[in-house]
């Protein structure tokens, strides 16, 4: 791609081919995997925000979600299992000029990386964490995850899952994340808008994307093909704009979508850098 076309990227309508590594396509995700839709929403938001690809860093962990960074035409880092937030913390602190986006999964961020998630929320360092929740460890063959719904069959819950699930957004909000949101992949435009707000937010932004794993999870649980799974996900979500409308009593288990929390807690990086600047002034005076 030559320089001229790149410079005009923001002026053109969004074309995902401007933001993916074409030599890596087609990607390795299974047919109907919602992660692809989530990736589109992310790149669409990046386009609308007019972010410079050269200053965009995409950090991912391990699992199906972890592979996505390789397809983004940006500075991409495919790190270790559960740790992308920790890598990203170092990167974002060392390079505040970069826009840091973390792509992680339910197992990556809530199980093995749970500690990093809560502390990233608490620290409120400017970055956006996109958590693709497909309720399963897909890459390893479909084991139960911290978000696998009750009674669902997985390769490690042959009699159905007995463990309760994490509400990732409630967790992130309680831990202090500056921005928390959730959306289903079917609402791709809304998802794009949500991610856009999350990236624009100054602080730690956590976005849970309700994705679908058709091939492994859906099939084992008779959830239908991707279109059915996507529609099913939407059916149990309740956009935050509904507030407390009449359907609440009838759908007590519905998860809220949209922006679930946005606070003006101080962003950690800038407050640390202010301290550094003060220390440097002080040591200058000492001499």
């Amino acid at each position: 791609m030559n320089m001229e076309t790149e410079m005009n990227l923001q002026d053109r309508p969004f074309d995902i081919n401007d933001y993916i590594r074409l030599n890596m396509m087609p990607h390795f995700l299974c047919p109907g995997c919602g992660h692809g839709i989530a990736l589109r929403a992310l790149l669409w938001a990046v386009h609308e925000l007019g972010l410079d690809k050269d200053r965009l860093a995409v950090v991912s962990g391990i699992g199906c979600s972890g592979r996505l960074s390789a397809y983004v035409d940006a500075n991409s880092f495919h790190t270790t299992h559960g740790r992308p937030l920790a890598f990203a913390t170092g990167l974002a602190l060392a390079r505040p000029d970069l826009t840091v986006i973390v792509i992680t999964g339910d197992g990556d961020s809530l199980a093995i990386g749970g500690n990093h998630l809560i502390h990233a929320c608490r620290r409120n360092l400017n970055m956006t964490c996109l958590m693709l929740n497909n309720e399963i460890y897909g890459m390893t063959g479909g084991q139960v995850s911290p978000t696998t719904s009750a009674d669902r069959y997985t390769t490690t819950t042959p009699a159905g899952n007995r463990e309760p699930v994490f509400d990732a957004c409630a967790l992130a909000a309680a831990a202090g994340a500056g921005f928390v949101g959730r959306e289903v992949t079917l609402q791709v435009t809304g998802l794009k808008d949500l991610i856009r707000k999350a990236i624009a937010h100054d602080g730690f932004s956590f976005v849970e994307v309700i994705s679908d794993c058709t091939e492994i999870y859906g099939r084992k649980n008779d959830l239908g093909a991707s279109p059915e799974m996507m529609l099913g996900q939407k059916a149990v979500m309740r956009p935050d704009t509904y507030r407390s409308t009449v359907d609440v009593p009838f759908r007590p288990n519905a998860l809220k979508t949209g922006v679930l929390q946005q606070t003006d807690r101080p962003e950690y990086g800038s407050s640390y850098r202010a301290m550094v600047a003060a220390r440097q002034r002080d040591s200058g005076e000492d001499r």
Partner: protein
Amino acid sequence: MTSRRLNLQGNQACALGAIAAGCRFFAGYPITPSSEIAETMSGELPRVGGTFVQMEDEIASMAAVIGASMGGVKAMTATSGPGFSLKQENLGYACGAEIPCVVVNVMRGGPSTGMPTRPAQGDIMQARWGTHGDHTVIVLAPASVAETYSETIRAFDLSERLRVPVVLLLDEVIGHLVETVELGTTATAATRKFATGPREEFQPYAVTEDLVPPMPRPGDGYRAHTTGLTHAPDGFPTQKPDEVRAAIGRLSDKLVLHRELIESWHSQAADDAEVMIVAIGITARAAQKAVDDLRAQGVRAGLFRPVTLWPFPEQALRDVVAKSGARAVIVPEMNQGQLVLEVERLLGRDLKVTGLNRFDGEPLSPADIAARVREELAP
């Protein structure tokens, strides 16, 4: 600026060496007996515009250091036994993805929580083999506070030049020892080669003449991919046998090619030594005294002290021992026998190599070592 004479603790010297080497990012987690390094860095880094962060755990601090280094900033973390174990997976990532970084391990008694405030040298093999899979790593083992300062600078220099993680292996005694140090202000560390030139043909893991590919820095326009998966020169995962062989092979070939730059060792009274002592760290300090005492009594003892512990200065040891004509080699160490395995591997076919081990939380004394040498020479 002139050099400064300071009374410094080993851990502080390590922190100041890092600053002098251009380290501008430190992530750590509190652990005895290395915490002073983090404490010193938390105060010193802001003065030079750097960033200190205390992460939520040892794993995260290793990851954050790699993250900062991927951003193009010289970075370090420090820990001790249990933390070093936790860092191993990400240390392997730095090996595989060739991310420069310095990891300080101030060794304490083990296994497990062991004896946090007592010295040991039980991580010699872990420092070399701690992370899974074939990998290469550089390990430096200074034996004084002054050397801790200079070796920390050298650790950054090697890490940056060769794109390899460097482990600085201290022991609790060196870490907490306070000595008068002359801080040279001339010592500096290199900065890694960043990628330059045309972006179109850029390959982040291209095979260059020096086997060290220039590193793409975010923001410079290369938009490269970095992964812990085995990757081809283009940075993307591969499982093609020839590409895999080339990729893994280059990691070790790189260190072989730059062996002269990496290896560092000292010898003392080695030329005519009948018995050669091989030791590192605080044990080598004791051995130095033992050699002095023995020589004063006419006993021909010598010392070979690897400063670069891994890759082990094989040829240097062979040469020094061959030249001396020593008939026995003693390897004193504060463990049940780790360094001795490497020395046996190198010399054991021709010479008698034995260990002198202490693993009770107390350092080996010069008298312990001298006695063992005499025992060896006894008819």
